[in-house]
């Protein structure tokens, strides 16, 4: 984006008060999960057999889990994992989906057919099911979960961009750039991409929040991030048992609220970005 465009964007985004607050909260949250564990020097994997399943107290502010690990520490480390998976997997989706969508829309022909039909195939399997199958075959770890969620996210990014590139490629400014002998690469990156990328910007936040939700659901089912690594989803894994759900509500309520709070904030930022980029979409 050029400087002037960025300025207008920031100005418009700031009009959405709630989105600005949410953005600040997210930044604070990222800083907290990165730096607070260093300051508190808590160990998320320290098992204390004398402190099993303790309710929140002065010593363990959020209580301990069923094997006596400090929940605050696990939630902080779990937050690192959950946020990391969310951001990193969306980067992967964009790295794959953006060039494919751009090239398919611009060059058309056989490339278009292959890419868009492949996207159809990907989209016709429920994402959760496909992820579960793949994760069950490769041993799940943080990086596997990130890569799988990221790779499976490419079709929707490619489709979004593709649709816009199709309409941009025949615009007069592209034609005239072509007429004066502009090279393909410059055409793509100077004219076509900047004018068709808006829907991707509008979607990034929602993609991040849904990636975080997918990761936590997977981990909650026991098919995602594996212990001893913590993630908000796998901390709540034990609450599948009615006994834990009933007698140790602090084990699942705190990470669950962190998750909801984070997703709500990211989605609010997403709404702010969308309204700033496309005022017509507002409240539609």
């Amino acid at each position, binding site marked *: 984006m050029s400087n002037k465009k960025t300025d207008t964007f920031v100005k418009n985004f700031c009009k959405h008060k709630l989105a600005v607050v949410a953005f600040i909260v997210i930044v604070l949250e990222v800083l907290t999960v990165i730096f607070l564990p260093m300051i508190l020097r808590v160990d998320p994997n320290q098992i204390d057999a004398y402190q099993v399943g303790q309710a929140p107290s002065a010593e363990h502010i959020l209580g301990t889990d069923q094997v006596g690990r400090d929940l605050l520490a696990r939630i902080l480390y779990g937050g690192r994992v959950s946020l990391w998976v969310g951001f990193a997997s969306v980067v992967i989706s964009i790295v794959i989906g953006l060039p494919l969508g751009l090239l398919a829309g611009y060059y058309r022909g056989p490339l278009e057919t292959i890419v868009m*039909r492949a996207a*159809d*195939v990907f*989209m*016709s*399997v*429920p*994402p*959760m*099911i*496909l992820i*579960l*199958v*793949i994760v*069950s*075959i490769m041993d799940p770890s943080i990086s596997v979960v990130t890569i799988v969620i990221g790779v499976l996210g490419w079709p929707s990014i490619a489709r979004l961009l593709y649709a816009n590139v199709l309409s941009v490629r025949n615009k007069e400014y592209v034609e005239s750039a072509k007429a004066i002998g502009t090279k393909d690469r410059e055409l793509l990156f100077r004219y076509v991409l900047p004018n068709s990328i808006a829907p991707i910007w509008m979607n990034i936040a*929602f993609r991040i*929040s*849904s990636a975080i*939700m997918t990761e*936590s*659901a997977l981990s*909650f*089912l*026991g*098919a995602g991030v594996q212990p001893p690594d913590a993630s908000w*989803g796998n901390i*709540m894994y034990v*609450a*599948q048992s*009615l006994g834990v*759900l*009933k007698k140790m*509500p602090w084990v*699942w309520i705190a990470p*669950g609220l962190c*998750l*909801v709070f984070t*997703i*709500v904030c990211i*989605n609010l930022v997403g709404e702010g970005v969308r309204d700033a980029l496309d005022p017509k979409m507002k*409240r*539609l």
Partner: protein
Amino acid sequence: MLKFIVKRILISIPIFLCITFAVFVLSNLAPGSPADVIAQAGNLTEEAYRQLEISLGLDKPIYVRYAIWLGDLLKGYFGNSTTLYAPVSYLIQKRIGPSLLLTGTSIVLATLLAIPLGVIAACKPYSAWDNASSVVSFLGVSLPSFFLCLVGIYVFSVKLAILPASGMHNPGDESLGDLLRHLLLPSLIVCVLNMGSIVKQTRGAVLEVLGEDYIKTARSKGLKEKVVIIKHALRNALIPIVTTIGMLVPMLVGGAVVTEQCFGWPGMGSLMINAISTRDYNTIMGCTVVISVSVLVVNLLLDILYTYLDPRIKKG
């Protein structure tokens, strides 16, 4: 019409082949081939192991094995579950009903609640109803399904003790009332999670149609507002709404995996989760194929439904 349906089915075939091929290749990537499983039981010599591979057909190239597997699949043979000692097709037959019941109820509930809310929100923009609709659609995309399940069970089953926490029936009680009591909470949760996008789409689509000239015409003819909204506005806004509901189907199947697991609902989702935790590949692959095919079928039905909703589509 028939031509359209045939064409649409023909488009689904390569997609079906791609999905099943991917599933097949994936299942072959899984550690531990069937030969290894048997070899583990008895101590086999190198020679005997190779014989075993030949008898299981594992020496053939992967595309030949895929063709054989596909043939079995079309005959409804998915292999045997390695942990539940039953044919996978039998297991799926037993589980598919409860799954359809849960997702079906949720979709119907979500549609019945969401469309009126969306229409009211569109007719009275910025009213209390409209605000309610935006809260509903925002929450729908912001609440993780499993957390909502846990909260639901905690509040209604543990604290208030008015609804059962798990299963489809109380042991020995096969009555409809008992089934409904078990169905209420999970289906409401899946409904809440999914009605948001329908509300949003309905509001947007109706709002757009309300600005059209034919709505002005209908009003100036002196038609009742109710008729204008339902017969003219909603009727023309139905296509994007139906598309949204259709796009929810794969999501719903995926989301219901989590809900089924939380509520111990005896459906395909929980069958699959258990199969994954026990590395029961035949069952995993069988479920995946059945689920993907049902998504394909739903998409096909939706496309046919479109042509009824908007006859203009058929020509295009």
